[in-house]
């Protein structure tokens, strides 16, 4: 089974791009399933189910979504094998812009959109920098020049990635993404596989439910601004 990790900030069109890409794969009788990681709630599973795509949802709730991802991905992979999938796609939102839920040896796709402003590529960090493919959506609502400037800024942050312009509404460009998915290698399991980048560090009193502001209440991994 191939494992493909897809991530990107909220509302960039991850689900639309994935569904349109799966349409092409289904036509070739490739069986694809999706694990949707989210924080508080998601309705995206309904969209997948409507398309008869096997889907599982993981809601991290009070936990860091990245930590939640890495502590669940192996079981998700086993679910995919049991479902006899050809391709398993994990979809997760990069909520703190520090997330990078990519594994070495699995294709990593980052989905961002043209509306985020030209400084955003620098702010997103590891999620963009460590991706193999960067998909840029919503190109139809900005000018040609802005598309070019945005793509250039993406390239400054990640010069190695393949950049694809995809229209999530019409699906233009998803055929090529489907081709790239098919070129991805097979994996038997995720035993001892490694993350591409460390997770955001967190272990302090606030992680454990502390709500009061003040030095006396801060225990653990604390960092202060140098004012």
């Amino acid at each position, binding site marked *: 089974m191939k494992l493909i990790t897809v991530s990107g900030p909220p509302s960039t069109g991850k689900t639309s791009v994935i569904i349109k890409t799966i349409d092409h794969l289904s036509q070739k009788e490739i069986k694809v399933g999706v694990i949707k990681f989210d924080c508080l709630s998601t309705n995206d599973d309904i969209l997948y189910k409507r398309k008869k795509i096997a889907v599982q949802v993981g809601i991290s709730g009070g936990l860091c979504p990245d930590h939640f991802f890495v502590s669940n991905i192996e079981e998700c992979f086993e679910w995919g094998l049991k479902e006899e999938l050809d391709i398993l796609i994990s979809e997760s939102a990069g909520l703190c812009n520090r997330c990078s839920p990519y594994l070495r040896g699995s294709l990593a796709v980052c989905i961002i959109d*043209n*509306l985020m*402003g*030209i400084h955003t590529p620098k702010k997103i960090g590891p999620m963009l920098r460590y991706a193999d493919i960067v998909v840029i959506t919503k*190109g*139809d*609502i*900005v*000018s*040609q*020049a*802005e598309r*070019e*400037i945005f*793509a*250039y*800024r993406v*390239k400054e942050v990640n010069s190695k990635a*393949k*950049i*694809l312009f995809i229209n999530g509404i*019409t699906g*233009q*460009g998803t*055929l*090529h993404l489907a*081709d790239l998915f098919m070129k991805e290698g097979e994996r038997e399991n995720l035993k001892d596989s490694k993350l591409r980048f460390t997770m955001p560090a967190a272990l302090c009193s606030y992680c454990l439910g502390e709500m009061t502001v003040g030095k006396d209440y801060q225990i653990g991994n604390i960092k202060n601004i140098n004012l």
Partner: protein
Amino acid sequence: MKLEDEKGFDITIIGGHDKDGNPEDLNLTIYSGEVVSIVGPTGSGKSQLLGDIEWMAQKDTPTGRKILINGQVPDVEKRFDIDSKLVAQLSQNMNFVMDVTVKEFVEIHASSRKIEDSEEVIEAIITQANQLAGEEFLEDTPITSLSGGQSRALMIADTAYLSKSPIVLIDEIENAGIDRKSALDLLVKREKIILMATHDPILALMGDKRLVIKNGGINKIIESTAAERKNLVLLEKLDKKLLMMRNKLRNGEIIDCIGWE
């Protein structure tokens, strides 16, 4: 100023098949400086044709078409290289989301194109855009406050001077107070291949030839006839008249003269 020389560029489209699998009998070469209009009902496959060219299709898209660049099979690895994109697309939507002035905008674009000594190019772009737009804007006008016509004019001038892509796709230049003929002339002068999807008879007739798309395939190629070119002159006169009346209306005048002198 340093600009890439695109002289002598040509593309060849080798036919595939339409949506029902009927063969598309086609071997069409388009040269730089040519204007080709694309006509056909909505959903007939105009965007797919463009998509095939942009992707340098090698019988690996739903239409089975093959694209040659300068008569050769292109290096498909270049498909993902943003610096060697073949098609610059002037989309119908002309919204700007960046919060900068016209000058800053063109500067950022020039720097992303690695053009040094950009002063001269920036000035040329703004002057050209103003000539196309009619309503004047300044270099320190914020791009988000440009009118539809001004934005379009700026993008056409910008594409003419800054885009390295040898092919420009225009998706219908609507009559938003912009001199369409000069816009095309400007792009042609910059040795671009212009592909223009349109339903507008004036624009369609401005093309050297037009491709008729039907059921996903190129159904016919029409070369403009002498009679068509004569009609174009007439249509342009009509269009000027309409523009004149629109300006009168705008200025609060009475529309009482509609004679055809």
